């Protein structure tokens, strides 16, 4: 489209405003996490520096951050794997056969998307406390599955619906069993869908604060979001360390986004979203 000069100028300014609005807080977080302590609280210079890595070292050596980071990795990894295994099986069964209970599964999954968090958290906490499994990573994982499984089934259901049945039928005519056809034909072809489910399950689990706050009591079992949030409650606010901790949780997400942005955008469009 050919535009007038003022029109083009307005467009560039609008684009610049969007970029600054979206990215500045993130830029400021990273910059603050690396700014030397003698100027951190006084300088508002937008140019990074003088540099230091001391906050990162403090965080890793003096706090529970490393343990909590490992907890978060465990919780997110298990959540992603379990979500992928179950959601692919459920979604496949639901799309490939006329069976009773199918509407219940799909309806419940979509409904579960919209549950108030406390409606799940109160009974879960009570059940895990009674089982003697309160304050464990397992309880956090199970509560995350109540978010990620519906998401996975819902998304893969849409994905399998659009995949022609003839593909497995051809493989089965050639002597494959249903399970063989599923494993050798359907799964490889659904890789893009599986990646999208993995990304969103990871995102939900990794960024969750609410469920981890409720399920976990001890510092050693906290995930990073809960651990980091409790730093702000302590009496001296160590902004350098807080920003370093924030940067470290955000980094894996940015890394994943940079590599997999097309799956991410496709998932957003198809309704595989986090609240």
């Amino acid at each position: 489209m050919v535009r007038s000069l003022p029109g083009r100028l307005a467009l560039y300014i609008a684009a610049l405003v969007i970029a600054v609005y979206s990215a500045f807080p993130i830029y400021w977080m990273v910059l603050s996490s690396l700014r030397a302590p003698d100027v951190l609280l006084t300088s508002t210079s937008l140019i990074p520096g003088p540099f230091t890595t001391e906050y990162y070292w403090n965080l890793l050596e003096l706090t529970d951050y490393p343990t909590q980071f490992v907890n978060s990795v465990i919780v997110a990894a298990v959540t992603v794997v379990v979500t992928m295994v179950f959601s692919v099986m459920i979604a496949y069964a639901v799309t490939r056969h006329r069976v009773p209970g199918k509407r219940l599964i799909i309806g419940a999954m979509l409904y579960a998307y919209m549950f108030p968090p406390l409606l799940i958290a109160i009974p879960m906490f009570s059940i895990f406390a009674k089982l003697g499994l309160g304050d464990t990573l397992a309880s956090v994982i199970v509560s995350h599955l109540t978010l990620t499984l519906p998401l996975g089934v819902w998304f893969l259901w849409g994905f399998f619906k659009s995949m022609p049945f003839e593909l497995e039928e051809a493989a089965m005519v050639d002597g494959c069993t249903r399970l063989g056809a599923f494993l050798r034909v359907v799964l490889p072809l659904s890789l893009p869908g599986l990646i999208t489910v993995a990304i969103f399950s990871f995102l939900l689990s990794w960024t969750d604060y609410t469920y981890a706050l409720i399920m976990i009591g001890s510092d050693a079992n906290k995930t990073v979001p809960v651990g980091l949030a409790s730093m702000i409650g302590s009496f001296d606010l160590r902004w350098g360390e807080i920003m370093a901790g924030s940067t470290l949780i955000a980094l894996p997400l940015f890394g994943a986004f940079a590599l997999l942005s097309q799956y991410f955008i496709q998932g957003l469009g198809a309704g595989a979203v986090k609240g």
Partner: protein
Amino acid sequence: MSSKSTIYSFLILGLAVTLLLIVAPVVYAISLSFYRMDSFVGTPEWAGLDNYARVLSQWEFWRALINGFVYSLGTIVFQVVLGIGFALVLNQVFPGRNLVRGLSILPYLLPTVVVVLTFKWMVDGSIGVLTNVIAALGLPPVYWFESPGAAMASVILVSVWMWTPFVTTTFLAALQTVPTSLYEAAKVDGTTAIQRFFHITLPMLKPILTVIVLLRAVWMFNKFDVIWLLTQGGPVGSTEHLAILSYRTAFSLFDIGGGAAIATISFAILSVAVFIYFRMFPLDTE
């Protein structure tokens, strides 16, 4: 294994997982709302509708309900307007477009904790960068969390920043589905860009916009973490909505039946939204 038994074993597994992870907790939560229970490991005592009567007679409940509506409405209006505006800009051709598109999604990827902590750091007392910008512009200092109105505005501001990218990205994707021939024809007729937006773009994208608003409304109504981390519902309950009231009732006051009753009431309210959703977009399971 025969074809049928593979499918059925997948399906039974699916049903079992659904019942265990989704149906069971909800049923348990609703049933807890009819019992008195002051410890999570204690034995529940039948209380009938007592919890509901108590909750509904507290004015905190009604305040929380209104706060929830104010918060959801405020966040949705700004998210949708900003998101559509951003999408329209990012749909134009300009150098660096892909970079700006990528940057515009970043807030959505961040954990709530990171967003809240960074916001608190940026507006901190006398040293925050935003505090300094406001002072440099000669504006009076803003007390973000001190007064009820300011606290609600801060909570809405942070939420809008975080969730606008969802609207931007879905709307931007939807814009690609509007046939360009429609715009060309309208342009020949001498329409302005604003007329084309209101007479072509918006009507064409009404269905997707309805989905976006409905989903966002439900999620914003449910949102717990951002408000809890920013204000814990304060000052004096001015940002406390049903999710926070339910959390406080169950986990600070140990009135578990009461907390469950509040969660059940929110669930009932949301079910109306879900019902509308299913009526507008029926499940096509075939």
